[in-house]
């Protein structure tokens, strides 16, 4: 029957939207963490995602360090391990470059250092993209797993309508949720997390408490880099990529973060989830080339109707 096919299509788009949305949510959380704590808009976030994808690729496929785990487990272990690897990259990027245009030294300056930050993070983005081209080559890569071409089938009980859950995406989505929960716990419950929030809230007062604000920023930048990199590693399990993949995803990340409200972590996750949803649902009615256009229509609607974001507080931190 017609409506059963329609129902099946809608349900499958919803399921795909949720799983992909969780991964988008994770990458948005990384960007949001850096903005929320450092007030730095990081234009290189998409390229840190790319580094995460290549880290997973080298660990699992090229060097096969994780091959012993088998093709079902290795891609996801690789994605998680991409986190600490890119955490270290983020740490060094901050130590050598970003710290020079951010932190306590710029809090008091007229533009809060935003011009410098814009130029520097754009520069890092270009260096990572082209450096990636030299090191990794332009050939599209993928982290192959048999799970990306198999699905769990869920009978809906309504006629013959069945939901196909792509195994790679479901596991990726669950891993993303796990990482977000762990980060949330870190920020809310641990001494380090509270110190990071205090440094974000009032850098001067945090210094009076004995919190090293520049170090807090370094941790935040590294954590944000690592988290987006895990999302990159997860993307790599179902999508082929090149060193320029960051350009596609940075758009999704910015849309998601603004959607959820700048600086709100859970908001960023919901924002990313919403983007995933819109993208997949729009696939039902629009040709694939227009999926990103659909994202922007929703994005513009929200900016017009609710400029503080879905979860943002408009008056928070002038």
């Amino acid at each position, binding site marked *: 029957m017609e409506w059963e096919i329609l129902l099946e299509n809608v349900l499958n788009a919803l399921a795909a939207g949720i799983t992909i949305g969780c991964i988008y949510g994770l990458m948005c959380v990384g960007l949001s963490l850096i903005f929320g704590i450092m007030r730095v808009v990081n234009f290189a976030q998409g390229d840190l995602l790319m580094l995460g994808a290549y880290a997973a690729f080298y660990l699992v496929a090229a060097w096969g360090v994780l091959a012993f785990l088998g093709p079902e487990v290795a891609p996801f272990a690789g994605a998680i391990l991409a986190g600490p690897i890119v955490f270290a990259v983020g740490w060094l990027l901050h130590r050598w470059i970003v710290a020079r245009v951010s932190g306590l030294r710029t809090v008091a300056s007229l533009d809060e250092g935003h011009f410098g930050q814009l130029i520097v993070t754009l520069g890092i983005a270009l260096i990572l993209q082209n450096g990636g081209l030299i090191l990794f080559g332009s050939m599209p890569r993928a982290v192959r797993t048999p799970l990306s071409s198999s699905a769990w089938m869920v009978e809906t009980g309504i006629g013959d309508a069945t939901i196909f859950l792509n195994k790679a995406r479901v596991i990726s989505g669950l891993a993303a949720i796990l990482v977000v929960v762990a980060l949330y716990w870190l920020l809310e419950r641990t*001494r380090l997390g509270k110190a990071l*929030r*205090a440094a974000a*809230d009032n850098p001067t*007062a945090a*210094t*009076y*408490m*004995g919190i090293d604000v520049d170090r807090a920023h370094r941790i935040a930048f590294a954590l944000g880099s690592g988290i987006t990199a895990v999302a990159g590693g997860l993307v790599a399990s179902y999508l082929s990529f090149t060193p320029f993949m960051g350009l596609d995803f940075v758009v999704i990340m910015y849309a998601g973060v603004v959607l959820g409200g700048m600086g709100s972590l859970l908001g960023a996750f919901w924002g990313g989830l919403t983007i995933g949803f819109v993208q997949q649902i729009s696939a039902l009615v629009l040709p694939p080339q227009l999926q990103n256009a659909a994202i922007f229509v929703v994005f513009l609607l929200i900016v017009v109707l609710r400029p503080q974001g879905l979860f943002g507080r408009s008056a*928070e931190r002038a």
Partner: protein
Amino acid sequence: MLDIEDFSVAYGGLRALSGVSLSVGEGQLVAIVGPNGAGKSTLFKAISGIVPPVSGSIRLDGRDLLSVPPARRPHLGIAHVPEGRQVFKTLTVRENIEMGAYTEAGRARFAQTLERIHELFPILYERAGQLAGTLSGGEQQMLAIARGLASAPRLLMLDEPSMGLAPAVADMIFERISQIHREDGLTILLVEQRVAEALELCDRGYVLETGRIVLDGPFQTLINDDRVRRAYLGLGD
């Protein structure tokens, strides 16, 4: 305990402090009074390392403080309760106090200091789970002082604790400061515009005007000085 000698600070060529010398002894309550813009807050910021010096020295127990990075200074026992309170608005009351106890000493003694804080300011116990930004001005001031106490400091620096508070609330804050000084024997450096109250509390006072110390001495000397009586206390000859 704290010795400041011939200390000068400038903002872009403009002298904010020139040749300030001041000392705070163990267990003393020292007050710095003076009009707006005299450099009182600048002095505190310099002690905390937020403002760089031009010349002079600051020593804590004989140790050169200026060579210690700002974020390490609280760990040496200096607690700065800043002007305008500066509580962490997006953190809860309890989390603010925990951040006060970020120092090693504060963490080691957290249970006792928390009990003492709740004894001094019971309202903070009632509001423990509330975001600090939702507190009233008086409550935020109490929280700022509590946060300072939580670091288990050796020297508590209070910058204008009565600023912007209703008279009754300000009186209560002064009462608590006096109590902390008397009962806990804490060394306190207090900056105040409410000169009468500040001088009444202190063992020793300094009058700071346009970046210079124009007068200093024990409480009786200051309170009986004609200039202080006329300019700050509103008393005639």
